[in-house]
């Protein structure tokens, strides 16, 4: 492991390099490197530079506003927050997950599969495929979706249309692209009409074919670059996620399963309503983002990874046939019980994309999806916990309300927070392996971003005003003097200011 690079001794004598912000991840992150006089990396950290204030945003609001309100926490995965909040407020109205009507449960699952499909498609085709298809240190002018569309027009167009299809699933189920009110306390507020179902069925077979093609593509990319792809940014870790009672991959509802790096079980079918008995969060002075860990293993050894790699590693099987066949190939490529390659996140993500496409088809053919029994009622409770597998990993929403239904306490653990320690470890692995002793250049620094990007982190939310997207790389000496600076402008041009 590379924890020795978290904090350097005598840092006042070291040069500082900042990659700020990290691009092609959601929000604003910053990587700082401290180098000695021989350009050897002595310290590497991924910082989160924005304080989110989620809990303060939610507290004081009536609980029934939450499914809509929390969508505004994130412009990339609003549906994930919507569904996690809905599961929590189900409990506030006295409805447990197993008591939702079949139609409500299946509509929520359909909504969630649409969300995961569009999110995974965006991440692979738009954000990651330029690195994977052209090379991590390729010309910066090539590392974008337009270059992919020009060089691989079929692949690029499939990415755009898969993303669009996922958005259409969301629109059909929740009534709007954003700010939809599909899920409400105790169920759903609208059914799917036959016309809406038939509209989505028109393209679903094409989506399955394209998803299968994308799995074949990532397998080819990964396996044609071995052992590099199995080693780049790779760390050994624990893995955590939801699981079905029969051990199948689960994205919407299940118990918590955690395994260690040997594939040995730490937790299994653990009730997520008791999550705070198993998971604690540590605060470190240099980052706004917390560091969660499994209590039974302690702060040093209890950190874990979530998201596609964790889910595909943890499950015993996938309950759709093409994705299951892809999972078996994925596991077979490794000689270990768990696949630890950080770049294998991409492969696992596309296996899930295929699973989502297959699952959408199955649900669209289920008569319950156009059923009208949508809401269950129960007796009020004062605490609710909702957990789902968001595209980036396990997402926890925990609320307490008073007798007037006002939220008095809110706690959210978002997926990226769970991957915080792992992303830092991957950054340190790349810094130590590929950067030490070399002159720093933009392509070289992109290696750091490739490592972070594999996790598909969501570092911030939907602020995006025009003109706020510069990328700067700065090299500062021990006295704080600017030694070198690269500035990437909004038009993609790069200036060097020595």
């Amino acid at each position: 492991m590379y924890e020795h690079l978290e904090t350097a001794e005598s840092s006042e004598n070291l040069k500082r390099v900042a990659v700020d912000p990290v691009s092609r991840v959601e929000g604003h992150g910053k990587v700082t490197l401290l180098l000695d006089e021989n350009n050897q990396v002595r310290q590497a950290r991924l910082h989160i530079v924005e304080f989110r204030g989620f809990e303060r945003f939610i507290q004081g609001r009536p609980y029934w506003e939450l499914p809509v309100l929390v969508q505004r926490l994130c412009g990339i995965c609003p549906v994930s927050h919507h569904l996690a909040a809905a599961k929590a407020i189900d409990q506030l109205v006295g409805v447990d997950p197993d008591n939702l009507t079949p139609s409500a449960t299946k509509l929520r699952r359909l909504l969630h599969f649409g969300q995961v499909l569009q999110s995974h498609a965006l991440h692979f085709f738009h954000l990651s495929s330029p690195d994977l298809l052209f090379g991590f240190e390729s010309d910066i002018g090539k590392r974008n979706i337009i270059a992919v569309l020009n060089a691989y027009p079929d692949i690029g167009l499939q990415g755009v249309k898969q993303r669009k299809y996922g958005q259409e699933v969301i629109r059909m189920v929740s009534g709007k692209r954003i700010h939809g009110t599909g899920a409400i306390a105790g169920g759903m507020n609208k059914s799917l009409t036959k016309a809406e179902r038939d509209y989505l069925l028109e393209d679903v077979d094409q989506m399955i074919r394209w998803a299968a093609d994308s799995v074949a593509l990532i397998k080819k990319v990964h396996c044609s670059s071995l052992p590099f792809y199995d080693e780049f940014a790779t760390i050994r870790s624990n893995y955590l996620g939801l699981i079905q009672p029969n051990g199948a991959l689960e994205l919407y509802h299940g118990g918590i399963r955690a395994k260690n790096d040997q594939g040995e079980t730490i937790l299994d079918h653990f009730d997520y309503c008791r999550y705070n008995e198993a998971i604690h969060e540590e605060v470190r002075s240099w980052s706004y983002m917390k560091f969660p860990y499994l209590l039974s293993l302690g702060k040093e050894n209890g950190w874990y990874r979530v998201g596609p790699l964790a889910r595909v590693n943890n499950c015993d099987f996938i309950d759709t046939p093409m994705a299951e066949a892809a999972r078996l190939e994925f596991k077979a490529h490794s000689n270990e019980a768990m696949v630890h390659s950080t770049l294998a996140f991409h492969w696992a993500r596309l296996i899930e994309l295929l699973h989502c496409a297959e699952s959408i088809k199955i649900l669209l053919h289920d008569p319950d999806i156009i059923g009208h029994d949508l809401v269950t009622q129960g007796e009020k409770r004062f605490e609710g916990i909702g957990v789902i597998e968001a595209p980036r990993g396990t997402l926890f929403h925990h609320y307490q309300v008073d007798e007037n239904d006002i939220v008095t306490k809110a706690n959210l653990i978002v997926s990226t927070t769970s991957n915080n320690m792992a992303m830092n470890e991957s950054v340190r692995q790349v810094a130590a392996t590929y950067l030490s002793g070399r002159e720093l250049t933009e392509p070289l620094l992109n290696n750091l971003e490739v490592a972070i990007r594999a996790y598909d982190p969501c570092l911030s939310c939907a602020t995006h005003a025009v003109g706020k997207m510069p990328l700067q790389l700065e090299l500062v000496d021990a006295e704080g003097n600017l030694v070198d600076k690269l500035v990437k402008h909004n038009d993609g041009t790069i200036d060097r200011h020595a």
Partner: protein
Amino acid sequence: MPKPVLLLACGNLSRGDDALGPLLLEYVEAHCDLSEIELLTDFQLQIEHALDLENRELVLFVDASVSCTDPFELTELEPAQDNSYTTHAMSPAAVMAVYRSIKKQLPPPCFLLGIKGESFELGEELSENAGKNLQQACRFALSLLSHTDVAVWRQQADSRHPLAGLGMLPRPQDLMDA
């Protein structure tokens, strides 16, 4: 067939001045004949929005802007491969470039109505200055949408003082009362 004019606003209602785009859309929805105009809103632009440009005659993107020098600005856009390709939130010009790559043809005439904003924190209300800018931008948008002619929009985009020539320049007190 989609409606010939698309108004596509970006922003988050719960992030202070980031709400400017969606709020302008709400104003247009309440005050404008929408028989020829489609309204769309999203948190941020992404690759699939290129498909929303298909079969349009005119497109108006609306967004909060930190780089506006005036309360609002109208700009005609060209497809551009800018740095926004590297983020989850693309620029309108980048969306146009995706359209050009997919369709192998130029996108329809696209304009950006930028409204000056200054504060974008989660849970914030619209700032006072942004509220004033929004009022002016709303009036301008209504005037613009009553002339869905690309020549008129280009004239407005070229003008240092939008609304000149439309004959509908509102008085300052009208803007304050809006």
